[in-house]
């Protein structure tokens, strides 16, 4: 470990630690709300007639809490951590970075309260009303200034792979966010979209799909590209594959949004284009997965001893599953059955639980002990968490597959006389076993997350962040990206 020399320049890791803490708190809160929602679908009276416990109001709280609270805090934390090390220089404008950290938490917290109050634009994953949209835009731009400013000052010429993905996250999300949320305010809690009807739908799902694409997929791939080589102590398997898959991913993802609107009142050509591009998207998605798996492929032994690596490798498997399932669901003839059903919910959670949460957990298990200069409080608890997370995710996905496919087929079923075979309530009453299994899955996953929170806060308790200085670099101009990776992992192990 680099010596603690106070008058030498050091990385700004305090802000990273805060972001990780906030991210963990949001994970526990938002997953708890998710479990509560799952219970409300079985026992609808659980809202006790209170407007702020009503399903329609707390469901957006769950999704926003996970994506913007847990997800974005984790992405900011890891982006700030890795961009300093891949640029070999401390953060640009560290106080602005702190503003991003605390400002973001303030926006997510007050935004959550506003959702309970019924302030909503009704656009999925963009529910927050215009005052919050403005605040998000400002903080996002500051995030960009800190991130790109650090890269602009870098002491290593090539910009490392993880930074392409984090950069894509910052740039594309800001464009999507601004265009989709254009609206005319009526009052502080209400605005009307500048788009209407079918056009609004096309713009919203261009946003909605690519928020998943560039935040929940691209952003977290940035995490993988930095932390996986470190954990496995190997450079990225193929630099060329990462180049090709990055640009293909960035180009193709944007086209896939209309698959959310199959058989709706938008033009057929838009739907067909969305479908075709969704299927093509499988290629760059899996290319990245293969690159990740091959990077660990000579380090399998470490899997049995390192819970962090276990989480990340498992997350790649779920990433592969979700990015295979996505294109399948985008095919019109599959979509006839899956659309509007629990299958969609299952698909989202194979991504959110299996991929996003697990890759973040692995990263946190790796990062937190190292940042405070100690060992993880309990490896045993982390291993228990691993199995709880896996079991919870599997139960969740399997129950929602069952529920979704049943719903889809039963809704479409027509008898010999040409009449509907089942009423809506017939199908609804069949959902109880699936919903119950889902609740158990969610509870297991939440319990695992609470174990991790305990484990990591115990690890951090009473310890300060270790000051790390950028190492000396020779011949910076000659370095290629792949040997930066190998140097990075050597540095990681010293």
């Amino acid at each position, binding site marked *: 470990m680099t010596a603690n020399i106070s008058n030498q320049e050091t990385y700004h890791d305090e802000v990273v630690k805060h972001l990780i803490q906030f991210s963990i708190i949001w994970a526990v809160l938002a997953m708890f709300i998710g479990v509560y929602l799952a219970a409300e679908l079985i026992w609808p009276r659980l809202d006790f007639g209170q407007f702020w416990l009503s399903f329609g109001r707390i469901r957006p709280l769950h999704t926003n809490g996970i994506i913007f609270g847990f997800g974005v805090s984790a992405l900011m934390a890891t982006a700030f951590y890795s961009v300093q090390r891949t640029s070999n220089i401390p953060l640009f404008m560290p106080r602005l970075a702190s503003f991003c950290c605390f400002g973001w938490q303030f926006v997510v917290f007050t935004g959550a309260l506003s959702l309970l109050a019924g302030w909503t634009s009704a656009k999925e994953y963009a529910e927050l009303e215009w005052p919050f949209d403005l605040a998000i835009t400002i903080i996002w731009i500051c995030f960009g200034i800190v991130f790109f400013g650090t890269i602009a000052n870098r002491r290593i010429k090539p910009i490392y792979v993880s930074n392409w993905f984090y950069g894509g996250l910052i740039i594309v999300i800001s464009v999507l966010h601004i265009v989709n949320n254009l609206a005319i305010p009526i009052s502080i*809690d209400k605005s009307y979209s500048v788009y*209407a*009807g079918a056009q609004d739908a096309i713009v919203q799902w261009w946003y909605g799909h690519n928020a998943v694409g560039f935040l929940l997929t691209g952003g977290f791939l940035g995490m993988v590209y930095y932390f996986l080589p470190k954990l496995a102590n190997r450079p990225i398997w193929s630099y060329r594959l990462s180049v090709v898959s990055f640009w293909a991913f960035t180009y193709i993802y944007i086209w896939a949004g209309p698959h959310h609107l199959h058989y709706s009142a938008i033009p057929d050509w838009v739907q067909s284009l969305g479908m075709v591009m969704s299927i093509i998207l499988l290629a760059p998605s899996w290319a990245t997965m293969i690159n990740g798996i091959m990077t660990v492929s000579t380090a399998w032994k470490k899997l049995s001893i390192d819970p962090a690596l276990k989480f990340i490798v498992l997350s790649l498997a779920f990433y592969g599953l979700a990015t295979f399932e996505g294109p399948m669901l985008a095919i019109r003839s599959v979509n006839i059955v899956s659309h*509007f059903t629990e299958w969609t919910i299952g698909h989202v959670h194979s991504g959110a639980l299996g991929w996003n949460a697990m890759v973040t957990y692995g990263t946190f298990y790796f990062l937190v002990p190292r940042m405070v200069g100690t060992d993880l409080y309990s490896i045993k608890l982390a291993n228990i968490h691993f199995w709880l997370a896996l079991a919870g995710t599997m139960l969740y996905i399997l129950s929602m597959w069952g529920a979704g496919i049943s719903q889809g087929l039963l809704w479409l079923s027509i008898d010999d006389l040409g009449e509907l075979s089942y009423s809506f309530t017939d199908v609804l009453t069949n959902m109880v076993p699936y919903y119950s299994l889902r609740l158990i899955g969610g509870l297991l996953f939440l319990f695992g997350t609470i174990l991790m929170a305990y484990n990591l806060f115990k690890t951090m308790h009473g310890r300060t962040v270790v000051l790390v200085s950028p190492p000396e670099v020779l011949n910076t101009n000659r370095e290629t990206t792949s040997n930066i990776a190998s140097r990075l992992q050597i540095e990681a192990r010293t």
Partner: protein
Amino acid sequence: MKIHGVTLHRKLENHLGLLIFGILFVSAIGGLVQILPSIFQESLGEATQNSHLYSAIELTGRDIYIKEGCHVCHTQQVRPLLAEVHRYGPFSHADEFVYDRPFLWGSKRTGPDLHRIGGKYSDAWHRVHMTDPRSVVPESIMPAYPWLSTSKAADIGDIQKKLHVLKKLGHPYTDEQIRNSPQALQGLSQLDALIRYLQILGTRLSESPP
């Protein structure tokens, strides 16, 4: 073997400005191709005989629908599939939504589709159903909304300002309609307004093709 693309990429990864531009450029193409033509396509944005301009009460009801998150569990999009048309009614057309800001098609049918709900049940049925869903549909898992009948429709925002803004966005409200709108909401509960909205939903589709 040298691939030209990788050589190009090496340039981008050495220059931050080029990399940012590259990402912006590459990610913009798909959106531009899909969104721009749709924005200028008349059949998606122009009102026809199938389009219904919401009255002050209906618009307020719609805003209550949004506030309570009804769209979280109910879609408003009947797909052109045999079973779906049997279950809900005629499939949805783009011109029926030109006054919908935002669109409320939804993504999940935890409850049934509502695009053709207008006129299917009586006002009295809706009133009971909203206050205690399980008293009319025992299997229902819908939340109850007891607070809607005791709160005023007039509390859901400044209706004159709403109509004024919508007029600017191209909804053909007359000055008289805007002037009289607060009176229209007088004495109505939020439940009244919501039911008025539900009862108009999907009822303006004419049988003959335009």
